[in-house]
């Protein structure tokens, strides 16, 4: 033990009761575990803590429960309270209830989908900004355009596991730019630059082989 003064617990020893109850955060729990592994005296004292822990639970569990009188008295008092104005749940309450109503699995999927959407959106914004800065300055009327309705287009749905970085690299490598979306089914309208319309089919075939996408089709 590092503590030489019995009247003052060292930091780790002070945490032993919470370690026994499992209420320490991961970092502190690891600190205690490490100390226990290297300090036999601390480990012996931890056994004393566990003993107290068990007997405290035993003691409390033998205290019994209140009689029905407590509940009857409570609800008699509640019934005697003035009626509250019927008000609908507030916005915060509705949010709390909405999320509380979701199962952990649904919540996890929703969070993943939301995270992906945010990443994609961030990638798109970054892409647009990079393109804008790259073409800043004077442009002739004959400069390539990615405006919808002019040029060669595909419909693309990205793979769920694709990151924004993957998508940016894919767009850049294939000279593609997103012009609209997401539409129904998570599809994006993507302009293909630098190729004649006749070569679109072969480009689509090539794009279909990339793991970043799970659907590619030519479109007008």
């Amino acid at each position, binding site marked *: 033990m590092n503590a030489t003064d019995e009247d003052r617990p060292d930091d780790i020893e002070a945490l032993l009761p919470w370690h*026994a109850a499992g209420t320490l955060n991961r970092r502190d729990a690891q600190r205690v575990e490490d100390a226990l592994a290297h300090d036999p005296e601390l480990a012996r004292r931890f056994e004393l803590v566990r003993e*107290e822990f068990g007997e405290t639970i035993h*003691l*409390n569990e033998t205290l019994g429960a209140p009689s029905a009188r407590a509940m009857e008295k409570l609800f008699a*008092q509640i019934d005697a309270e003035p009626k509250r104005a019927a008000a609908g749940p507030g916005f915060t309450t509705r949010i*709390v209830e909405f999320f509380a109503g979701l199962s952990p699995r649904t919540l996890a999927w929703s969070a993943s989908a939301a995270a992906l959407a945010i990443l994609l959106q961030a990638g798109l914004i970054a892409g647009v900004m990079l393109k804008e800065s790259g073409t800043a300055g004077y442009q002739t009327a004959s400069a390539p355009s990615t405006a919808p309705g002019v040029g060669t287009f595909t419909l693309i749905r990205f793979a769920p596991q694709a990151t924004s970085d993957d998508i940016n690299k894919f767009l850049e490598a294939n000279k593609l730019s997103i012009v609209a979306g997401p539409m129904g089914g998570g599809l994006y309208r993507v302009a293909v630059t630098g190729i004649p319309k006749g070569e679109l089919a072969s480009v689509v075939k090539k794009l279909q082989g990339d793991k970043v996408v799970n659907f590619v089709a030519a479109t007008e």
Partner: protein
Amino acid sequence: MQTSSDEVLIARIARGDRLAMQVLFARHHVRVYRFVLRLVRNEATAEDLISEVFLDVWRQAAKFEGRSAATTWLLGIARFKALSALRRKSEEELDDETAGSIEDHSDDPEVTLAKKDKGSVLRECLTRLSAEHREIIDLVYYHEKSVEEVAGIVGIPEATVKTRMFYARKKLSELLKERGLDRGWP
């Protein structure tokens, strides 16, 4: 079927939902009762107090902000009610310090230990601690409250929570020693 979280129940209680109140009461009243009973040491008083605790929940539900767990909030209210009740009765009854200092001469330590197993001696000593020490030991061991939560319920800094728990355990060891059970600590 999913059960509603305490936070959802409290939000419904704030809107006057009596059923939500019944669910919250059924879920927590036994633990709250035991916490209060360990402080006031009188079953009838403890029963009266839990009615008061949950009536406060009914009245104050709209003010619950969810910054702490609902059980932490409940225990905080319960503690306040218990201490107020103890203060009201302090002139009529022995206070805990006095009661704790009275020595039991019925048996010498060896006889006591021979009569009872180690666990029952430990439990007996747990009941002989001061209210302050009983409270912190129960909150940590039985109600499974973290350092931060105990600090919130008792209204003391986290460092004080740790040292108070240490001294409560130390006092427990001393009581055990008096009863013939030397644990080699402190």
